[in-house]
């Protein structure tokens, strides 16, 4: 049992998995399901690609994708299976792990080789701790978070071959798919992040925040309630456990209480500057510099000063 098999429905994430796979010193196989373009891209990155084309295989059907991949696993017999820890990948991971009797870790942010074992690094207890964990089963399934590994550059040398599996009768039918409205912002790669929380008392002030972000070349991010409860900003701007992990040079936190599910997404920033009206605000413990101020006064002042 040797080798690393990687699969993600999203080509960018599949490419990141190729980089992650290189941390494990074994042969790498990539799988592409009903996606010839992805098979091509992965081959250009030097991967040995297995193309699985079967029109009765529906990506929406987690059960049948899991069974299909388990058959590929049986044919190639890899020690490691890497999936992306996006929503589809995470849902699939549990099911596939159960079929192949593998231990499984999700939301893994890094693979570290230590004493001949691969340790998976991931947040635990809602982000309060960082756990290093090892999977003890013969086959090991790891779902890796997005943006933790680079997309490798094209190097050629890969090849594509076909592989086939049996698909069982489906107990699930896809009725419709609708793209999510997206502004195409990628907060995770921003150099400067301006993050707003519920301390922003009215939506009009967002305009000032946007202006400030423009003035300092930053991207506006937010805490979860700003997107999901107040719906002032899109979900792709959420920072934290259920959103993006950012590593900016500078983060300016405006009225965020700094709870751990949020701070996991920003604690890798080089410099953190926080503004909160509460002089005992918890967020100050994660800041390099903090200012006690009411955003209603502070925001217009900052914008004019810039």
């Amino acid at each position, binding site marked *: 049992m040797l080798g690393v098999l990687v699969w993600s429905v*999203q080509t960018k994430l599949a490419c990141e998995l190729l980089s992650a796979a290189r941390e494990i010193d074994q042969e790498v196989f990539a799988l592409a399901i009903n996606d010839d373009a992805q098979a091509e891209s992965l081959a250009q990155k030097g991967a040995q690609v297995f193309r699985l084309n079967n029109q009765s295989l529906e990506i*929406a*059907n*987690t*059960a049948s994708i*899991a069974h299909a991949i388990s058959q590929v696993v049986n044919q190639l017999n890899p020690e490691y299976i890497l999936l992306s820890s996006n*929503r*589809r990948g995470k*849902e699939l991971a*549990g*099911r596939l*792990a*159960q079929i192949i009797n593998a*231990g*499984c870790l*999700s*939301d893994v942010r890094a693979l570290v080789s230590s004493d001949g074992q691969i*340790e998976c690094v991931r947040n*635990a*207890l*809602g982000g*309060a*701790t*960082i*756990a*290093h*964990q*090892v*999977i*003890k089963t013969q086959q090991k399934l790891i779902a890796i978070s997005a943006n933790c590994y680079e997309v490798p550059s094209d190097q050629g040398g890969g090849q594509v071959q076909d592989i086939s599996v049996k698909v069982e009768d489906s*107990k*699930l*039918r*896809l009725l*419709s*798919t609708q*793209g*999510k409205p*997206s502004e195409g912002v990628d907060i995770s790669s921003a150099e400067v992040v301006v993050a707003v929380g519920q301390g922003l008392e009215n939506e009009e002030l967002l305009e000032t925040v946007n202006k400030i972000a423009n*003035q*300092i*070349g*930053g991207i506006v991010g937010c805490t979860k309630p700003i997107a*999901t409860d107040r719906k002032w900003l899109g979900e792709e701007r959420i920072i934290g456990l259920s959103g993006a992990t950012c590593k900016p*040079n500078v983060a300016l936190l405006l009225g965020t209480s700094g709870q*751990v599910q949020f701070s996991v997404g920003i*604690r890798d920033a*080089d*410099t*953190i500057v926080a*503004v909160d009206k509460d002089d005992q605000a918890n967020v*100050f*413990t994660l800041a*390099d*510099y*903090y*200012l006690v101020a009411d955003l209603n006064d*502070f925001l217009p002042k*900052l914008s004019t000063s*810039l």
Partner: protein
Amino acid sequence: MKCIVALKQIPDLQQLRIRNREPVLNDIPYTLGAIDKNALELGVQLKEELDWEVVVISAGNEELEDTIKEALAGGADNSFLLIDNQIDQMDSAEIASLLAEMIRRSEDIGLAIFGEGSGDNYTGQVGSRVAEILGWPQAGYATSVSVDGSTAKVTRALDDCIEEVELDLPAVIIVSAGLNTPRIPSVMQILKAGKLPKEIITLDDLSLVSSANQIETVSNLAPIAERKQIKIGSVDELLNCLESAGVERR
């Protein structure tokens, strides 16, 4: 028909303290995860619409009976609890096989509802693993569910799209965080909840061979926070800080 809702008891992380980088979990009261409460609310809404029965299942340590009262008050009809202090040491695969075995003991199930991730470890595996053990179809990240005869229609919020699928019952539904606002039980409901029917078993009552742990935790420490925490007094000072950190005015 029955709707099973799986709820996990977790330490209340709001009260988690870190000492010497170690999480201190002793003496923290238990609660139910926010997403699990969403799962229960969905079950209760389906019950009101379809006249189903809502059965809460949970595996946990001796505190469980107390913790779960909150859920029962939120509209469940009865509960099936596996109480054993060994549960705390088990991994997702073991928990899933226990829950699947408990579900198998009930008849006439329409749906088994899980949360997208538990409130403490959030690995998001248990629902999918149970679906596989039972051989049921599954739909994860569900934001709405409607049942029509022997099928369920589910809307799912995925990374880049919204998907609508139809599943044959019985099926596993794994709900997306925040898909609904769980109702807050009244004092009367909480008082009554203690009297709702419940069945309690221990590990000895399940015929499962225990397997070795699949996961070994090498370390689990709080990250080293080495922030300067310097208090500044004015907007001008703040601007200086931003600039010395590399921000350029445009």
